[in-house]
């Protein structure tokens, strides 16, 4: 089959041009976080990495990421040694900025490679669709906003995730897929949210016989178990010898944080807070009690700890239970029908459940849903119609991450460009489904996408002109409630598609 144009490499080159031009753009505290980690890993012995707390941005990623930082710090030392001093807080010489921004672009090559693997693994007519999906991930506004402006290394991490998911497509590389995912867990533990899908899939497809679930393939179990143990041993072993595991765990899982993150991630709790906010006004009329202490903080919604005035408070235990329940439902189907498409669907639904019901979810976590979903969004029109509101909502919900005027045109124009281009292209490429589409759902998603335009205009322009600096939480609340509707809507839609296809 002839080559499909444009190729991933061509897209990566042009995108890299734009990303280099974005070097002087706004960078968040995450930039300082990663500089600090470079400094910690470079200048301190291994035993002090997880104890060092000169900066408030302590190391709170698993050891493989720390090793990754250590490797980069070796190069950083040649560029500007001053960035590697732990006490050099907020240091951002142009060499540091260039270096750190450049590492994001370079490490993203892993993503390009993984996406190429994904395209190569697709056969026949779906290859064009796979190429389109791969380019949409590569050019994702989410990655541009989070990685290249706001600053993080998601491109690299998601590259590993996609690589591992593509490896799962072929029976002969199932083991490698599992081990890659284990290594990914040792880099960034947020992927634990997706682990149940991997666990069930590998259990059914690799550890049990394809013919009968009662025939256990012991050799495979041994290989997988041994491999995973070796990987975790490499990551955590040195620290375990020194008895530092409890300290690492307290860094990785800080349960002291609040239900909602600084901004509101567009999940169920954002809608819950929104309803609570509305009830504050309505409660006296319908005779519900209002908790006085919760009313005190005017800035609620901006600070981490949300106290609800009317509705019952939410504990981590409730979040955990809800997440687990909604993860388990799709996993049942995966266990019965362990195909690759179901696996990707299950990963996506695990991402959805954790994003929608998780404790202290950051809006950046939406990529956990969008990126796996992109791999199967073009399977047919029903998948696509569930994907569409997610694509709009997920990306719009990232807008509050960038609030500086210089980056406003970039985030909005780039996102609109991406949405117009890919929703149009996907529309051409997605084959018709063998089943009827749900009539109302398509209308919902069209209406939903249309509403985003006045919303963006209001949040970015009208609000500032009408209210100035006051009621700053309003645009945030509207954005996240709007996005939450989209994410929840697409979740419900995808659940239906998943269980009926």
């Amino acid at each position: 089959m002839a080559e499909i144009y444009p190729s991933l490499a061509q897209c990566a080159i042009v995108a890299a041009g734009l990303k280099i031009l974005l070097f002087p753009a706004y960078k968040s505290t995450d930039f300082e976080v990663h500089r600090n980690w470079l400094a910690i890993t470079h200048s301190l012995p291994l035993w002090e990495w997880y104890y060092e707390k000169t900066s408030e941005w302590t190391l709170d990623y698993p050891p493989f990421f720390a090793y990754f930082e250590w490797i980069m710090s070796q190069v950083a030392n040649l560029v500007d040694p001053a960035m590697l001093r732990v006490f050099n807080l907020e240091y951002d010489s142009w060499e540091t900025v260039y270096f750190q921004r450049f590492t994001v672009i370079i490490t993203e090559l892993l993503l390009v490679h993984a996406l190429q693997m994904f395209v190569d693994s697709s056969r026949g007519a779906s290859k064009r669709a796979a190429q389109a999906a791969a380019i949409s991930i590569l050019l994702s506004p989410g990655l541009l906003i989070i990685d290249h402006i706001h600053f993080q290394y998601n491109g690299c991490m998601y590259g590993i995730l996609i690589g591992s998911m593509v490896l799962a497509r072929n029976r002969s590389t199932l083991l490698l897929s599992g081990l890659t995912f284990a290594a990914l867990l040792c880099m960034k533990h947020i992927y634990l949210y997706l682990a149940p899908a991997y666990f069930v899939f590998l259990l059914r497809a690799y550890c049990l016989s394809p013919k009968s679930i009662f025939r256990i393939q012991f050799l495979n179990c041994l290989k997988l178990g041994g491999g995973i143990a070796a990987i975790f041993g490499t990551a955590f072993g040195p620290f375990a010898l020194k008895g530092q595991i409890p300290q690492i765990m307290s860094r990785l899982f800080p349960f002291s944080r609040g239900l909602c993150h600084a901004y509101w991630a567009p999940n169920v709790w954002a809608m819950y807070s929104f309803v609570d906010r509305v009830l504050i006004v309505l409660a006296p009329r319908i005779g519900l009690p209002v908790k006085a202490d919760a009313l005190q903080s005017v800035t609620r919604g901006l600070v981490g700890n949300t106290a609800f005035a009317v509705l019952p408070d939410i504990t981590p235990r409730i979040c955990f239970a809800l997440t687990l329940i909604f993860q388990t439902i799709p996993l049942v189907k995966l266990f019965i029908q362990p195909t690759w498409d179901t696996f990707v669907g299950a990963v996506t639904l695990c991402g959805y459940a954790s994003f929608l019901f998780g404790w202290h979810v950051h809006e950046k976590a939406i990529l956990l849903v969008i990126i796996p979903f992109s791999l199967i969004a073009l399977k047919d029109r029903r998948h696509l119609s569930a994907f569409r509101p997610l694509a709009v909502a997920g990306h719009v919900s990232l807008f509050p991450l960038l609030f500086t005027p210089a980056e406003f045109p970039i985030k909005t124009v780039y996102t609109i460009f991406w949405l117009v281009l890919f929703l149009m292209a996907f529309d051409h490429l997605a084959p018709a489904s063998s089943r009827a589409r749900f009539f109302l759902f398509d209308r919902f998603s069209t209406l939903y996408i249309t509403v985003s335009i006045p919303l963006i205009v209001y949040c970015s322009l009208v609000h500032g002109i009408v209210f100035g600096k006051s009621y700053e939480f309003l645009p945030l609340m509207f954005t996240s409630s709007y996005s939450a509707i989209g994410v929840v809507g697409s979740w419900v839609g995808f659940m239906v598609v998943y269980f009926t296809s």
Partner: protein
Amino acid sequence: MAAPSPSPHKPRRKAKRVGNGASSITSTEPGPLVRTPSFPLAAFLWPARGSASEWELLPLILMVVGLFRWAAGLWSYSGFEKPPMFGDYEAQRHWMEITTQLPVSQWYFHDLQWWGLDYPPLTAYHSWLCGKIGSLIDPSWFALYTSRGSHDPTLKIFMRATVLVSEYLIYIPAVVVFVRRFSRLSSVATWTSSVALVAILMQPATILIDHVHFQYNTVMLGFVTASMSSMLADRYLWSAIFFVAALGFKQMALYYAFSVFAYLLGSCLFPRINISRLLGIAAITAASFAILLLPLVAGTLYDVKSGIDSRPDLDGPHPPLPLFQDLAAYLDTNAFYYPLVEQMVQMVHRVFPFARGLFEDKVANFWCALNVVVKLKKYPSELLQRGALLATLASIIPPNLILLFRPRKHLLPLAFATTAWGFFLFSYQVHEKSVLLPLMPMTLLLAGSQGLAKSTRAWVGFANILGCWTMFPLLQRVDLRVPYAVLTLLWAYLLGLPPTSLSAYLREGPPVWKEWLTFFIHGFFYLAMGLWHVLEAFLKPPPEKPDLWVVINVGIGAAGFSLCYLWCLGSLILESELLLPPRTKKAKTQ
């Protein structure tokens, strides 16, 4: 299921079939049956070949080129934190300050030492409008005196936005319309013309100078493009109006004036004499100039009436006129019209600085290159001015004679480019940024017939990359190496040009000596440019010759630009079919 049930719904849109989508990009290749894009930019638009309509593609193109412009604008600008005078950014900001804060009659007189206004009135009106809008956001940006050298980051965003908005209101629509008309004229397919449009809009030189270094050249270039585009549509009067607007924005548009004149006159004379058209053009030109000056005149008269002096800093009798001093003998310095005369003379004096030298900085034109060999300073400036005038005339007369006697639409970009190259190489008082003027019409050639085929692409690309390279000393003074490298290399990559690819030169089949010649000439220049960058980056010039690298840059640039001039002139002669005997004219394909 027994039989495949009919799909419950059809794809929304049937793919439209547009005829030979890729004619000039692929048909020149005697390649395999499967067509492949011959350079990356064509690959990017590849999926849009059959299915997407122009109206789906255009918004996407405009968004992408806008993103690159805005992202490039995040970098520093000319004069950033470079006291005492700062740079072009401060000049433009200062003009917004004086036009909004001072009475009209003082605009051309106010503190000339600090970036006095030296552009024609339309720039002043544009500055006034931008200044008014900006003052609504933050009045301190344009406060008189206190705002000088302001580096407020929000002001920077506002200024960048004014450049972008001005460009999207003038240059971009003009280019879009021109590309449509020109490619239809040359029977180029819609998809191919979209590729050309992206190539033209991603031209690195204009982005670097306007959106990074800071200026409003695209406004003037846009008016000139609109003027050319009106010529393509036989709208001669509009063409005259747009050109007056270009001249009124930046006197630099004079580079094109001969070609505009030659074409408009030629179209009144050939194939038959059309007096009414000629009179119409003359009248509308005069009227446009009158309208252009009207606000300045009215403002001056109003100020005189309200007793506002154009030079409040001076007491006593009127100082002599800066130019045309003999005029004063015939005029009554106390008459009501005298301030008007003074105002106009001052404007002309500010706009055309005859008193300055032959060349200002190191520019890659003929004189500056010659200066390396022969020290021109020792000759009287009178002689140099005359020499410059003669050389310029000699270089621009041939293309304009062709255009005058053969006023054909498809010759316009070539004739404009040749004339502008002539001016750039030989005229007086050239700035390195002036290279944008010949580059604009030359880049528009990409939208013409065979515009994206190898030979045109190679030459247009060569001129653009060389043009950016000669502006490197200007850019690196304000630490703009990164955007320079990114935008130039990206454009070269998109169009498949060196240093990223040799595909514009190599082809299968028997070698043609002309192609080899182009390959070797261009190859030499690309190598020289690359080597120069290495030397400049790693070697300090010898202490007795601190300007060595710049001088070498100027020499290579001037030589390369001369080749571009010759290529444009040669192509113009070929395209005008002057050399073909009349019988074979029909046989020549477009």
